[in-house]
């Protein structure tokens, strides 16, 4: 068991970081160098700047999906926005950003309220939206017939990470913020983490391990869409 804890807590983070960065850099490099003849779709922006603005709208507001499928848009957009929120929120777990927040005028109580209130709500909302995304894969024929194992796997993986995350907030095995920050500090400075106390928390171990697997999985799966979207939209709207 200790070997597993060491592998997940001491080795996997570095593997994940290297694989993710290398694979994504490679992807972007390949995409950029491939020839891109014009396949403009109208209405098209008239300048390169407007095209970039359009891509930003697509990435942040899911503009095309809003037009194409309003219900999916509502859930998918909520899912991704909350996901981004949760991602940002994790910086408070990785490191001590409280002092930064306080110097920006937030009180200790305010930070707690934001973490517990907004963070807690986010954990619930994203679970609901993820569940919706999963259910529609089985219920709507046009989605069911194109759903593969990889689609279910991706959602399940994300779902498990969300559930274990929520368990640490709402469940009995609440994680220790100070210990976690200490662990990440050692991880980043490569100062040895094999004896980190936080790794004894089973829920944390599962949550963290699956998150690392997800990070490794991204460049090799449909989740690559988070990078591809920056390239596909400018292509069809090239002025």
């Amino acid at each position: 068991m200790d070997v597993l804890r060491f592998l997940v807590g001491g080795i996997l983070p570095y593997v994940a970081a290297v694989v993710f960065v290398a694979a994504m850099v490679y992807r972007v490099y390949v995409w950029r160098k491939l020839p891109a003849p014009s396949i403009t779709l109208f209405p098209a922006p008239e300048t390169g700047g407007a095209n970039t603005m359009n891509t930003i709208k697509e990435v942040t507001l899911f503009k095309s999906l809003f037009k194409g499928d309003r219900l999916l848009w509502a859930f998918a957009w909520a899912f991704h926005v909350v996901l981004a929120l949760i991602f940002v929120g994790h910086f408070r777990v990785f490191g001590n950003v409280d002092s930064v927040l306080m110097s920006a005028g937030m009180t200790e109580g305010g930070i707690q309220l934001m973490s517990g209130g907004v963070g807690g709500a986010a954990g619930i909302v994203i679970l609901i939206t993820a569940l919706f995304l999963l259910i529609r894969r089985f219920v709507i024929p046009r989605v069911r017939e194109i759903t593969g194992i990889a689609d279910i796997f991706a959602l399940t993986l994300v779902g498990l990470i969300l559930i274990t995350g929520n368990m640490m907030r709402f469940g009995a095995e609440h994680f220790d913020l100070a210990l976690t920050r200490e662990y990440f500090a050692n991880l980043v400075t490569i100062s040895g983490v094999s004896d980190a106390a936080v790794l004894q928390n089973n829920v944390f171990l599962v949550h963290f391990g699956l998150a690392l697997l997800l990070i490794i999985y991204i460049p090799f799966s449909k989740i690559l869409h988070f990078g591809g979207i920056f390239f596909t939209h400018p292509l069809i709207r090239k002025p």
Partner: protein
Amino acid sequence: MSDVELKQEDLVTAKKTEQPAPAESKEVMAPEEIKKGVVDAVRAIKDGPRAMRLYMETCVKCGTCASVCPVYYGKPEKRYNPAERTDIIRRIYNKYETTSGRVFGKLAGAEDFDPADIEEWRNIFYECTGCRRCASNCPMGIDHSVITRKGRAILDKLGMTPDTMAKVVQISLETGNTDGAGKEAFLGAIDFLEEEMKDEHGIDIKIPVDAKGAEYFYVPPSGDVLVNPEATMGVAKVFHVLGMADKWTMSSKCFDGANYGLFTGNDGDMKTDNKLYVEEARDLGAKVMLMGECGHAHRIMKMMMEKAGWWGELPFQITNCMQWTAQRVKNNELQFDKSKNPQPVTYHDPCNFGRSCGITEEPRAILNAACADFREMTPNRSDNWCCGGGGGLSAMDDIIDFRMKVSGVKKMEQIRATGATYVATACSNCKRQLTQMMEHHKADITVGGVHDMLSRAILINGKAAEREDYM
């Protein structure tokens, strides 16, 4: 359809003599040979074009494309789901070109190509109209028509383009037009049109042919000369009214902008066909190539040939006859008697004009000026539904059942909802599909062009055409 995968070498290899003989003597290919052809072509996607490779890697299978697809609307079956069609190619790509596919196989959506499937490919890749409505609505910006065209290109390289389609390309490369008409037939048609106009207006209205040095070179689809000639009369009348009757010309060699290389996925054929027209424009010394009411022809000239510079610097501009006329309407240079077109008229945006060229307001300006009761169908412009005959399908009578009962269903509902008795559209493919659909549904709705309506209402010396036999 899309112009991804244009390569210079295609040009060199694409001589019409090297075309696989379509209708006659098709040799049966060995399964291994078919498999090699398909797999090699799919693997080549890793080297681009960029769109194609991204489409292999970024689809999230959300199903939005299916909900906006005219074919899937007509019959919601898996085989008509755009994401599924693209996945046919993607599964092979995953099998050979992705780490996850090589390691995890089917679990990662990877599957080898089975040569027995090739006959089904010949159907499936001709069940997408290439209308690009999916691309307008896809959250990932995936244009499935790019993959449809890739599938067709693979078939074409194997000599397996459906016979009806292959025949049109062959005729076009042999005669310069998709109807296979010779110079005599063209000149005969032009004479006929001049006589018609004389009957209508009692004066001579010229259609100049092969006039060197004319400023404008008009390139309609051959259908607008031989099948639905009113549009060409409309253009002639505009030039006449503006006192520019000697400033334009048609060509007895190049009177069909239609170019089916776009539809078969064969870039070599597309360029061979296109080059003929560009050279003719150069020979004539035209300053403006005035494209007719033909969406894909305009798209190939303006959005593909000109943008990518296939033939270097062009000594002429490319514009569409609807843009040109609409500008004259706007300038109040043309007058109309709207009472000549009293019936409710609607406009069907051809996908290639609406979504692929951004020409949506000009036909409306002309129709609004020439018709008493113009009505929009909903949705319209770049959101318009395909007629069901796009991507060259309209020329394939062997799949007319599919076109009438599947791909055209939505369009028929849309047209009916307007209450219009005349559907104007600016594309020979749309016109053919829509005309057949009205016959199929025994609907009392006429299908025609934009300049057709102009031709009926435009005032020449203060008078519109005198005719009884319209509508």
